[in-house]
């Protein structure tokens, strides 16, 4: 039993929390059975579809948080892995020549493609810091959409691909539910592990971590590949469930923005944050969409601004978990904030004299 585990489990009220979590999981497991109950109107196939969407968002936000929250590399193009997973799955399942892959194999194939792409694109982009990395990934994402569009013989181009239709809401519910539980467990495990601590060390002070023996490149690329792989799986499931993919429904900028917003609302760099944030925003959007039909995007945008300004550490941070971070901290070096990871400046590029004393290292919380 290590202290890292204690930190992950948070001693206060942990028994009550475990019971609550257990009850929630049991509820989610039995929920689809509700469709068999005569006379009730809440648990419908449409409702199961909503939950499926939410589980996928929880999974994607958790993946995003591995690089964005734990490692501190705010990825504005994360949906590229989702897209590659979707297209990998779609292409493998609909091959004109050769064998058409079964769904399971195709999803894994698509996820492997996404992971390999993460490694390839990670080598150049993960050298960039702060907003530069974010923008490079946004560019990668947009470029990939156009590449998919022009490689028509393989991807179907703008016409898209139609997958073998398969309608079974309960199956997709359990698939995405199982994946979400698995992914959140993986993130919880990583957070307790030495690997996870190293990722946070990289976020807090990459130069210091490197000088203390952490192979930062290897760690960053590995985290990126894990996140890419898992988001690729989500993409594959989404493609099969949606039965139709084209560049404009798969590669949507707002999909990444959503993930960022959800993770920030829940709490960057915590295991629970993306889960809480994704669930909150998904259901909130349901309400907002109904109440402000013409305005819902504006309301959402205002919400995002509100989070950044007023609850930078998110819901989980507000509830007392101080281990997370915030966008202000991650980008503080560029936004001129005093509260930022890392005690010192980057390795000096300018000429000496060296800065004297522990500057930029005063006070932790604003």
């Amino acid at each position, binding site marked *: 039993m*290590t*202290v*890292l*585990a*204690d*930190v992950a489990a948070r001693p206060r009220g942990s028994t009550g929390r475990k019971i609550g979590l257990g009850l929630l999981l049991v509820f989610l497991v039995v929920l689809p059975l509700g469709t068999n109950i005569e006379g009730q109107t809440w648990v419908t196939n449409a409702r199961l579809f909503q939950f499926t969407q939410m589980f996928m968002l929880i999974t994607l936000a958790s993946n995003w948080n591995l690089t964005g929250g734990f490692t501190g590399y705010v990825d504005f193009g994360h949906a590229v892995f989702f897209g590659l997973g979707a297209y990998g799955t779609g292409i493998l399942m609909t091959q004109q020549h050769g064998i058409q892959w079964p769904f399971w194999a195709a999803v894994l194939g698509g996820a492997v493609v996404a992971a390999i792409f993460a490694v390839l694109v990670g080598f150049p982009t993960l050298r960039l810091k702060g907003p530069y990395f974010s923008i490079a990934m946004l560019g990668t994402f947009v470029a990939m959409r156009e590449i998919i569009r022009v490689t028509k013989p393989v991807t179907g181009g703008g016409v898209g691909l139609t997958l073998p239709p398969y309608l079974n809401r309960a199956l997709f519910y359990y698939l995405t539910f199982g994946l979400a539980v698995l992914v959140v467990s993986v993130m919880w*495990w*990583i957070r*307790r*592990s*030495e*690997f996870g*601590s*190293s990722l*946070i*060390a990289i*976020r*807090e*002070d990459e*130069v*210091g*971590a*490197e*000088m*203390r*023996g*952490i*192979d*930062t490149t*290897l*760690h960053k690329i*590995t985290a990126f590949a894990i996140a890419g792989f898992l988001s690729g799986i989500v993409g594959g499931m989404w493609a099969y469930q949606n039965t139709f993919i084209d560049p404009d429904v798969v590669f949507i900028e707002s999909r990444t923005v959503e993930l960022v917003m959800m993770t920030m609302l829940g709490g960057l*760099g915590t295991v629970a944050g993306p889960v809480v944030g994704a669930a909150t925003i998904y259901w909130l959007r349901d309400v907002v969409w109904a109440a402000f039909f013409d305005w819902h995007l504006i309301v959402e945008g205002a919400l995002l601004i509100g989070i950044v300004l007023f609850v930078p550490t998110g819901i989980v941070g507000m509830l007392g978990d*101080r*281990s*997370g*971070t915030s966008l202000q901290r991650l980008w503080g070096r560029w936004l001129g904030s005093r509260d930022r*990871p*890392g*005690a*010192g*400046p980057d*390795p*000096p*590029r*300018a*000429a*000496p*004299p*060296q*800065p*004297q*004393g*522990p*500057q*930029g*290292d*005063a006070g*932790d*919380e604003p």
Partner: protein
Amino acid sequence: MTAIATEPLLEGRSVTKRFGGLIAVNDVDFVVYPREIVGLIGPNGSGKTTLFDCLSRVQPIDGGRVFFKGVEITRLKPHRVAHLGMARTFQVIRVYRKLTVLENLLVSRQWRGESLWNQLRPSHPDTEGQARRLIEFLTLEHLTDSPAGTLSGGQRRLLELGMALMPDPDLILLDEAASGVNPTLVETIKDRIRALNTEQGKAFLVVEHDMRFIADMCSRVYVLNYGEKLAEGTPQEVMANEAVIEAYFGA
């Protein structure tokens, strides 16, 4: 006083570092033998920290060569140098502020030869025991589970020293380890450095402005001025050196 007839632990040959037109470290030769405590002094901006940055490889070296334990490290990546057994502290404190004191130490352990797969586990109890012993020595027990970001400047210096000791290095570069630490604690730090030196044979290269610290601790001292080696010798010799006095107190 100088160790003789042993292989140097650390050796720099004509080490040079330029920032644009400015030569921060110019053609400096130096040697640290095993079990030695060597001082590195000089006025502000004389290139001491830049030299440290070159040794720990966070700065590229523009000229000359550096050997550590007989291995050329001139082009090695920083984490490789750490794996070889060199650790350092920083003039501008570097701790992981959102990690607790204990976690800071755990994550600073010796990573040499550890596969990533093995790191997918929580820290080993032995590692944790080692970290807790260091916390005790550093008198930080009451802060074990506090985020490092909540520590005072002096406490962070202590934590950083612990982080440097954690991987059990053979050579430790101390960059003003005593600045901002209260005088009693400075004495403790000195005692501990002596103990590490005599009992475990650890070598130190120390940047320090406090001349008493240097005189008490070091067997040999290098003096840098404008990036060039101005003098070397025992602390007494160096402090009696006209050029050194000139550089420090000006004309």
